[in-house]
């Protein structure tokens, strides 16, 4: 069974800078991590590798060259190998262009039985790349998966939805996006770290996956950021400083009473 895990390198802190001209992200490569939900996806692949025979796990990531670190880390955690999709021409891709690159790379790795990824990334938070990749590969997709079982040519999943969960069965090859509750990600092992040093991770550019400049990057992206701005939020605020007179509290109670919120 061939499993591909899509991983994205994201900033470890919440402070990502935006390029004010293009509205796209500037990545510095400092304290970057594997997107936490992608670690869950990787762990699920590794769990299957431990419990089934003949499973290979390949991680695929699109990003700057510094994303090699994320791939090496995934190998140190137990993945067999990886592919880095990198090149200037990929920069500025929106989710459609990104999915185009990822699906082209997966096609090159075919036959693939299962593709796993996190439900969303902590930076962009769009949560749509996984499903787009499935659509482009024309294979079934299941999202928000908290439990996965592999059967004979099929998988059975539990999807976390509003007010409960659903059980759904799909034929493989399929793509599955996972939520946090599916497992507890493991850690790199010493043996894994040594192996990660040795494993050659190819770097593929646009030509390697058969894409032309018009299909990728900003050019291949149907969406455009028109502007970025700090939101104007303001309401007229009545402000009190809390002191020992109890005034702030009594004014608040009056205020809520006047608005008929408390009676």
């Amino acid at each position, binding site marked *: 069974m061939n499993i591909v895990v899509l991983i994205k390198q994201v900033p470890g802190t919440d402070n*990502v800078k*935006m390029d004010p001209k293009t509205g796209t992200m500037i990545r510095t490569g400092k304290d970057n991590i594997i997107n936490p939900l992608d670690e869950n996806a990787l762990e699920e692949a590794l769990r299957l590798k431990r419990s089934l025979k003949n499973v290979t796990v390949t991680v695929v990531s699109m990003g700057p060259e510094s994303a090699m670190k994320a791939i090496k880390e995934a190998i140190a955690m137990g993945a067999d190998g990886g592919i880095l999709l990198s090149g200037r021409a990929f920069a500025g891709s929106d989710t459609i262009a990104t999915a185009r690159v990822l699906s082209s790379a997966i096609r090159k790795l075919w036959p693939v039985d299962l593709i796993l990824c996190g439900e969303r990334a902590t930076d962009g938070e769009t*949560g*749509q790349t996984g499903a*787009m990749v499935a659509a482009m590969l024309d294979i079934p997709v299941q*999202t928000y998966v908290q439990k996965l079982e592999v059967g004979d040519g099929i998988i059975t999943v539990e999807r976390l939805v509003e007010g*409960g969960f659903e059980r759904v*069965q799909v034929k493989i090859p399929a793509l599955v996006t996972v939520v946090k509750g599916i497992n507890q990600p493991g850690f790199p092992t010493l043996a894994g770290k040594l192996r990660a040093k040795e494993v050659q991770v190819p770097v593929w550019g646009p030509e390697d996956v058969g894409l032309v400049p018009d299909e990728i990057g900003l050019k291949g992206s*149907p969406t455009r950021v028109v502007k970025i701005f700090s939101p104007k939020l303001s309401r007229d605020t009545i402000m009190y400083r809390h002191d020992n007179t109890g005034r702030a509290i009594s004014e608040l109670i009056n205020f809520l009473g006047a*608005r008929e919120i408390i009676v």
Partner: protein
Amino acid sequence: MDVKEYRGVMVLGEQRNGTIHRVTFELLNRGRSLADKLGVELSCAILGDRVDDLGEVILRGADKVYHVCSQDLATFLPGPYTRALVQLIQEEKPEIIIAAATTTGRTVMPLVAARLGTGLTADCTYLDIDPEERILLQTRPAIGGNIMATIKTPFTRPQMATVRPRSTRPAPRDESRTGEITVKNYGDMLVSLTERFLEFMADPSQEVNIQDADIIVSGGKGLKNREGFKLVEELARVLGAGVGATRDAVELGWISYSHQIGLSGKTVSPKLYIAVGISGKVQHLAGMQTSETIVAINKDPDAQIFQVADFGIVGDAFEVVPELIDALKKLRTGA
């Protein structure tokens, strides 16, 4: 793609067990104002088997309802839903399509966007029309810090966006409205050979319904620890309110994820939202700024949460909240 061929605004309504879901009316509210700005029709797509009360969708603002009717659409499966929606879009050619950011909307919209090769913007907090270009402006919180991004889809159609449930009020009912209901039958193409729905299991513990609460008391990192967070829970109890939290409070393990409010949590718009020890980062505000009344308690007078608040108290939560609880209790007993 000739963008001029596409006309009209479409919203993707939702049904659960054949009953129109409330989020449909919220979408109609957003859709109506966009359609009016463009001077075009508003349509609503409903995918399902038997669906009751499609007339209600007209009274809430739709000019046209397309009910794609099939037993293969009774429960959500990505394949059939995607094929139905792609077919409907190709027939009706709406310039804009808006769905709810539910597990269904967030799954089917990217599939449709990829099939059609058009753009999609997730979790928009604000939608507007650029009057000159007649184009949809999609605004959502951007990455990190307090930044919003406005995004457009200039060259392809439809322009697609999702909006969070509860981020708008449902469209009001207007008994005088009229419209047209069309049933679409797409037959065998909706049958899925690769997917099978097995069952739905309700899990009440997973869905803490803070979205239905009239009052929400919400706590952030300013409460210092799990023990401190209990202060928020106690204030909520006294007010008969739901409990909310910031992502930081959830990640510190003070309360479960189902209470998280904001961009990656729930969107709420209660009558009263009390924010305690919350700084008011844009990702949090994205989930609560449409609340009717907002009260903030924070020791930092410059905290951004005060900008969205109607009433602010600058002070230490550990002093202010107990006093407030006392005052409310006294009020209750008439003392």
